[in-house]
């Protein structure tokens, strides 16, 4: 745990240093920033403008799946507020919500929607959506699957493609390694946690896609943003996976990325600035490059 936070701290430092170097090259930017009096107000609209005046630390932690999104947001935020460090402790969504509830974290991170009883103490702000596409080889005849079928396929109950409308052939399940956010997301949404019978476990989204591309009997999952036209996406219960269907909630295999904040305690200035930044339009592209679907555009 310690190592990871140290590493993310270094990332933050690196990003801050890079931002500082850029600012120095830009010249006038740093002097302009001193005029910005109310920093939290400027933060939401300030990306690309002058560097901010806030300093201090924003403690975030929770969902391991949100690692990439947080890393991208942190990097972007460092350009706006170079004085603020954002720490991130990947402890899991449950720990993130608990951290926000007992105020050990400024912002808890959860990759599932808050339950009703949790909403008594904390507020949730959805910053992004995670759409997970189900991909098959281009030669596959299967174009649509239900969540139930996916569940049976990945747990090994259905082992032949002809049982779901394809050609005769053994289903080859391609997935990610244990600890991957995409795997965690897929397995928890389809309800196949820890019971998948993978033929291949690969360490990158790109590797999953190329494995599916190479094997006509393969099926896998990958972040929506990473899927190109080398493989075919199946529709889930008739709904195609796209940014639009993820956003309007009709595509089933998706989950929200939530910022969890305590109701009874006001956020620190820098934490508020980070939340504002994350929900601003400027962050949309950052979130997209991190592989998720932005909600505010």
């Amino acid at each position, binding site marked *: *745990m310690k*190592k*990871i936070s140290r590493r993310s701290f270094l990332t933050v430092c690196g990003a801050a240093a890079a931002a500082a170097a850029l600012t120095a090259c830009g010249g006038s930017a740093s002097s302009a920033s001193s005029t910005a009096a109310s920093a939290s107000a400027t933060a939401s609209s300030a990306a690309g403008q002058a560097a901010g005046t806030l300093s201090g630390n924003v403690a975030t932690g929770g969902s*391991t799946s949100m*690692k990439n999104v947080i890393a991208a947001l942190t990097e972007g935020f460092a350009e706006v507020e170079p004085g603020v460090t954002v720490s991130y402790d*990947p*402890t899991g969504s449950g720990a993130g919500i608990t951290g926000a509830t007992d105020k050990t974290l400024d912002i808890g991170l959860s990759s599932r929607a808050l339950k009703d009883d949790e909403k008594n103490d904390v507020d949730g702000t959805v910053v992004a959506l995670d759409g997970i596409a189900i991909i098959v080889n281009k030669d596959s005849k299967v174009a649509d699957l239900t969540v139930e079928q996916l569940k049976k396929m990945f747990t090994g109950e259905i082992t032949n493609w002809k049982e779901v409308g394809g050609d005769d*052939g*053994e*289903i*080859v399940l391609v997935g990610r*390694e*244990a*600890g*991957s*956010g995409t795997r*965690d997301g897929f397995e928890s949404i389809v309800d196949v*946690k*820890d019971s998948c019978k*993978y*033929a*291949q*476990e*690969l*360490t990158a989204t790109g*590797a999953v896609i*190329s*494995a599916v591309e*190479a*094997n006509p*009997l*393969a099926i896998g999952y990958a972040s929506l943003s990473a899927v190109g036209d080398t493989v075919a996406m199946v529709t889930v219960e008739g709904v195609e996976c796209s940014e639009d269907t993820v956003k309007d909630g009709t595509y089933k295999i998706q989950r929200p990325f939530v910022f969890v904040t305590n109701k009874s305690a006001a956020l620190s200035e820098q934490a508020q600035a980070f939340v504002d930044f994350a929900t601003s339009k400027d962050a949309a592209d950052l979130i997209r490059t991190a592989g998720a679907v932005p909600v505010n555009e």
Partner: protein
Amino acid sequence: MKNTTSSLRRVRLPRTPADWLEAVMNFIFFLCGMLAVCCVVLISVYMVVSGVPAIHKIGIFKFLFGTKWASTAAEPLFGILPFILSSIYGTLGATILGVPIGLLTAVFLSKAADPKLRTVVVTAIELLSGIPSVVFGLLGMQVLVPAVAKAFGKASGACLLSAIVVLSIMILPSIVSVSVTALNAVPPEYEQGSLALGATDTETWFKISIPAAKSGIAAGVVLGIGRAIGEAMAVMMVAGNSPNMPDSLFRSVTLLTTAIAKEMSYAGGLQRQALFSIALVLFVFIMLINVVLNVVLKGGNRDE
């Protein structure tokens, strides 16, 4: 090392520029020598310090002989027997495939090939040893894995067999180059004697040259085994990486190296510590192989 330090102490102030240069260079040599020693000591200490806690927490028996690895489950299981067995089988398989090929190549290069052809083959083998493992993996993934699936009528070719094939190719250069050196060092009188007694070339190579060079050849084999057991990247791209027991050549397996490499990036807590423990086990394996190598080399010296 000792001489260097004592001479440094004795010659407090070198008088001429040449003396100065000598002293400075001595010091630099000493530092370089120490650097390697420090690295080995640091790595050993670090491996033990970071690997032992998880083994302690999980229980050494459960860790080494547990048959199920589910590091991110609600109730995580950390049994690395499947990894250990896969590593052993993979290395053994690569040795079984690679050693005969490597040995015959070495005999060919050392004894049979005409000089022009020898230059070509030697260059090719040197190039083979220089190819990065990720390239082996890439080729394995794109060519070998589909070929294995097709040849054996399996749905997926990412399995133990593919890993063995890739590893056996990767260990060829070490086996060949060390064996060639050993075979070249066999005194020509031995072979001439054999030929003079009426043995054919082939009989001479197999009954005289190879037995005479056996300790060098064995060293090559052990080096090859060391490379095979430590390889991660190429194996990760062809072996499938599911934590299964290697009960079939066509099973998707995880080796010790790939178990660490694949989960490290997102691991936390006990899972991360357990990965260090796997590294410790791998470290012990490689140390054992080194000990064997030393014994083999010493045995060779006694023969001569």
